[in-house]
């Protein structure tokens, strides 16, 4: 029974990692760039929602604050692309990587300035409720996290593989110039994808803040989500979720069954192993380029 409990809490954590990883993958899939600030986006999403909902700030009703904060995050994602990333159009990937790391620093600083450095929790209607399921005690938030994540991943997967816009996004990343020739508005598509990544980060942030507390350094969780995205294979949406779940489940089990000190290494050791033996992730989409 203990193991089942560990598994469930691991899954719930893993879903949050998976959601951040989803943000990485979204942007990577559509623009072939990696947003190292995705973790900080999530932290910001959490703080925006806290700022709107919690009684010590604005104190809006939860259901009103939810779409509002997601809208703010979408606008923010779009603005980041419009004002900063788009100027790098056609530059190397490394430039984008370094830029987004710097962006993460700035977001962390701004969030600390506005909301302070104390850990805070989101006041939400699900807090404190439990579901009993055959001897298992599940927090309502954990259930919500799992359900929302699965739905979101499925929705995004369908969006990318079935809709016109989704296919246009994939095309834009596979070959920018060819996409232009085919009449895909590459820049606008990029802006949309950043807005979408902002929304996903916002959802991840809300779920995370409902489950536990956030402070400006929470964004560093992004590194773990990064491991998740790599383990799943960059460029695969279900892979990102799977990677997140793997990392999330390994953590509680490692801290229980492996000596202290070694346990926090587990996700990174797995990451290194995956990179060494399957360099493009478990759900690989890359073939070696032959000249």
């Amino acid at each position, binding site marked *: 029974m203990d193991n089942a409990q560990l598994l469930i809490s691991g899954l719930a954590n893993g879903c949050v990692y998976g959601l951040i990883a989803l943000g990485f993958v979204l942007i990577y899939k559509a623009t072939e760039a*990696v947003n190292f600030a995705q973790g900080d986006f999530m932290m910001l999403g959490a703080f925006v929602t806290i700022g709107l909902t919690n009684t010590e700030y604005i104190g809006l009703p939860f259901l009103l604050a939810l779409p509002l904060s997601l809208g703010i995050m979408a606008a923010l994602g779009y603005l980041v692309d419009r004002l900063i990333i788009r100027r790098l159009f056609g530059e190397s990937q*490394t430039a984008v990587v370094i830029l987004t790391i710097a962006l993460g620093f*700035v977001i962390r600083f701004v969030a600390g300035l506005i909301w302070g450095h104390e850990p805070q929790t989101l006041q939400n209607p699900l807090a404190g409720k439990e579901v009993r399921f055959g001897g298992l005690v599940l927090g309502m938030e954990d259930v919500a996290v799992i359900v929302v994540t699965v739905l979101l991943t499925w929705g995004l997967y369908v969006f990318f593989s079935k809709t016109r816009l989704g296919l246009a996004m994939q095309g834009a990343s596979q070959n920018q110039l060819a996409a232009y020739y085919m009449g895909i508005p590459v820049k606008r598509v990029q802006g949309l994808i950043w807005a979408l990544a902002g929304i996903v980060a916002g959802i991840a942030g809300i779920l995370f803040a409902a489950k536990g507390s956030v402070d400006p350094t929470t964004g560093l969780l992004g590194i773990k989500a990064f491991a998740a995205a790599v383990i799943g294979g960059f460029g695969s949406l279900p892979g990102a979720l799977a990677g997140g779940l793997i990392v999330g489940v390994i953590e509680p089990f490692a801290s229980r069954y492996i000596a202290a000190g070694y346990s926090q290494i587990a996700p990174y050791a797995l990451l290194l192993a995956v990179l060494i033996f399957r360099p493009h992730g478990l759900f690989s989409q890359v073939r070696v380029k032959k000249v």
Partner: protein
Amino acid sequence: MRIVFKTSYMQDIRPWKDGYQLCLYLILLAMVAAAPWWLDDFYLGELTNVLVWAIAGLGLMILTGHTGQASLGHAAFLAVGCYSNVILIEAGVPFLLAFPLAGLLTGIAGVTVAIPALRLHGIYLAIFTLALSVLMDDIIVLAEPITGGVAGKYLGGVEIFGHLVDRWGTPDQFFWLVLGVAVIVTLGYINLLRSPLGRSFIAVRDSEVSAQAMGVDIARTKMISFALSCAVTGLAGALMGLYAGAFNNETFSVIISIQLLMMIVIGGLGSIHGAFLGAIVIGFLPQFLSISKEYVGAIIGSNTVAIPGLEFGIFGVILIAFILFEPMGMYGRWLKIRTWFELFPFYRKDMFKRQKSYLKTERLR
């Protein structure tokens, strides 16, 4: 504008363009070497710090600036250099032997890392090295019998020919030690860049496919680049340990790795000057901020307010500004200004315009 009249082919590969340029650099070197006489101890310490960071930056520059492999994990190699230096000294090895050995060991560590890393490109390599850097923190804690774990280690000073060199006791001599290492590394770097090996580094950076077509062994080149880069970084790590005096697992955190990479980007990727210019920004930014905070506080009339994370926030903004407006960093800006003066009034805006490339995926499914 000066025009160098070339009379032999050797002039093309000489490390300096002409006597005038050589003179300028020698004067600069003499000025810096005389720093203990015209700087007080505090700023001398800061200058030493800048030089140590510059050496580390040179190390990363070999890999990132000239071979094009972005590494987010060089703090791990700083740690390897620092700890191996201290452990060797504690084992009774004299500093003059332990110091190069520390570099050698770090180089070997670099090769070990390079073997799996060779298969990785761009972002994957960045993530791989990032994970290494995160792991190094834990490894240092776990290897407590050797590294001292969380309690860390302490190194007061080192003996060179029976003469104690210590950061606090004899800051002048410590400064000269660091300066000497910096000069040797820089000269080695300049020589590397005009050798076939250095050229093949640059070829790999600019296009792996073309380099391969021209007969460059990519795997070997990358491996050597990793080894050299890590060895130099290891030397910097050893000096950093000496400079800090006491250090533990948190001294060489992921943040240091990221800072190091950002430093060479601000300075200018792919130029030796860039490592030094970036180090100056990194080294003096905290001092500059605290001074300007006092200044602003005095104007507003309130006492100085502490803003946590300000340094990193400003740093991030500077970096974003550089990547957007001057991707070649401070050295690139300097080149433009110099060319403007040299060509006056014939400088044109698009002279340094870079060719844009359109992106193609490596994913085939």
